[in-house]
């Protein structure tokens, strides 16, 4: 397996704002690479640098083993992208939009190929309707068709589920999985909807304020042995004091807002037994195992990062 994208110490500064700060990551061939972060974290700026829309202030980007700055056109022939909203020429038909971007990607598209592409995204019956008559979901599907029309090896999807209804989100998820598993494409998908990424990505990077928080296999990052367990009681301060005098003391996390322990999830029943014996009135014990909890935990309490990754 070879690296498709290698980013080293990438930075971008807009006046006083450091949008991306010495970001490094690698995307391997065949990955569905989740690029996660809250709004304004620097995801779109990074993706735009991968697509040469924004010039980096510092750092290097290699795609397919070649420097992006030196081999821009050669590289972009093998890249398809949906960048944020699927904005297309509203006064043109879906067919015309697809034809324009196919030609710009260096293809000589024929009618049958374009109609096939529209059929793949379920727009064959609206092929000659103007885009201004399309719903958001239809525009998104046309955007996908535009990104895929030249059969690229690398597909970059920036917030592809934005504005979609639940069915549209499910369709998008299925499409990503189809492209990855059946067609062997390498996919970078950014989102702030972590539950969506969790379902499609095999590797992920979390970015916060332009800096890498963590990068790795989704499965490894969801390792239950590194779960945070959040405890809610009628008096968290008292509960913390009582637990601090027991064997659980080293596992208590430094968090003023709630009581959290970093622990193996299998030990939760014993913890509950001990809390009851300490006469703590328990309201809930919540093992934070989903990627979304993990992400929220990291981005709202950056201090916990080291304890999770080391």
């Amino acid at each position, binding site marked *: 397996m070879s690296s498709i994208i290698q980013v080293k110490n990438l930075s971008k500064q807009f006046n006083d704002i450091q949008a991306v700060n010495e970001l490094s990551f690698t995307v391997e061939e065949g990955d569905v690479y989740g690029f996660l972060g809250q709004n304004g974290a620097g995801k779109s700026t990074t993706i735009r640098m991968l697509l040469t829309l924004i010039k980096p202030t510092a750092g290097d980007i290699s795609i397919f083993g070649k420097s992006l700055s030196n081999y821009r*056109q050669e590289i972009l022939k093998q890249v398809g992208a949906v960048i944020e*909203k699927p904005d297309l020429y509203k006064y043109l038909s879906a067919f015309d939009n697809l034809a*324009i971007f196919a030609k710009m990607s260096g293809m000589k598209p024929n009618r049958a190929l374009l109609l096939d592409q529209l059929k793949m995204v379920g727009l064959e019956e609206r092929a000659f309707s103007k885009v201004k008559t399309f719903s958001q979901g239809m525009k998104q599907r046309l955007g996908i068709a535009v990104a895929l029309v030249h059969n690229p090896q690398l597909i970059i999807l920036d917030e592809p589920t934005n504005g979609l209804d639940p069915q549209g989100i499910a369709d998008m998820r299925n499409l990503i999985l189809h492209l990855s598993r059946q067609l062997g494409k390498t996919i970078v998908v950014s989102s702030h909807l972590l539950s969506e990424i969790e379902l499609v990505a095999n590797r992920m990077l979390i970015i916060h304020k332009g800096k890498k928080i963590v990068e790795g296999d989704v499965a490894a990052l969801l390792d239950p042995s590194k779960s945070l367990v959040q405890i809610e009681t009628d008096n968290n301060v008292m509960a913390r004091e009582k637990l601090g005098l027991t064997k659980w003391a080293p596992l208590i996390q430094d968090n003023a807002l709630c009581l959290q322990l970093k622990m193996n999830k299998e030990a939760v029943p014993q913890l509950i037994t001990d809390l009851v014996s300490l006469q703590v009135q328990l309201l809930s014990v919540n093992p934070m195992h989903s990627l979304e909890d993990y992400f929220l935990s990291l981005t709202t309490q950056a201090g916990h990062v080291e304890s999770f990754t080391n």
Partner: protein
Amino acid sequence: MWNLLQIELFKIFKKPRTYLAFAIIAAFIFLIQLGLLVNGKDWMKFMLGSLDETMNIDYNKLVNGYAVCYFVLNLLLVHVPILVALVAGDVVSGEASMGTLRLLAAKPVSRTQIILAKYFATAVYVFALLLWIAIISLVVSLAVFGKNDLVVAKTNGLQLIESGDVLWRYFFAFGFAFIAMMVVAAISLLLSVLSENSIGPIVATVGIIIVCTLISEMEIPLYQKYIKPYLFTTYMLGWKGFFYIGSTDDGETIKGSIQYLPGILKSMAALLIYIVALVSASVFIFRKKDILS
């Protein structure tokens, strides 16, 4: 490049806004032609003032297709820049506001090619617009009003150009007007590269033309000496020079001659320099630009 140019032309000519200019021009010219068909003689009398007291003038001959076209061009070519700006000001900023610019710029074509393709496509639009004006104002006028000698007003009097000596002058006048309009297109392109919405560059282009024209027209020595020579508007009306015929020392007009040819060539060169400078600046800025739209 040819591929990109085809795409840009397709986009321009698929936009309903593009045809607005053609419709406005047609309506304007037809109104003038109708007016002159009904009251042409009165108009010519007004133009010539008290000259018919000293000369025997056949007004029916003077109100002909060439004269109508000359009148139309005098009125219209001042306003065509607005119609050019309507399309040229939108070519980059319109894509930015629509969100398609990021798709274009992420494709395997250079940004220089994108800008040049857009400018050349605008050139085709301008050419089509002037051809449309030529067809309606010249061909239709000749068909309706007939062909005869052309009377042209100059600062030192009137000048008669024989009918057989007129057509080629229109050909070159339209050619010159094309270059002048391409300067307007280049200004719009530069403003379009700098902007993220369509209206700004269109309004700004029109504003620049109005201000520069006013300064060019002001008889203030400071402006005349130090500013006017550098304004593109100073050279834009050079097409009229093709209708100023040369004459002998005895005052006899010389058929097929142009009175101020070096001046016309100088104006043309100045306009071409403007085009090169403005398009180069557009390319330079667009290549450096971060596309955030």
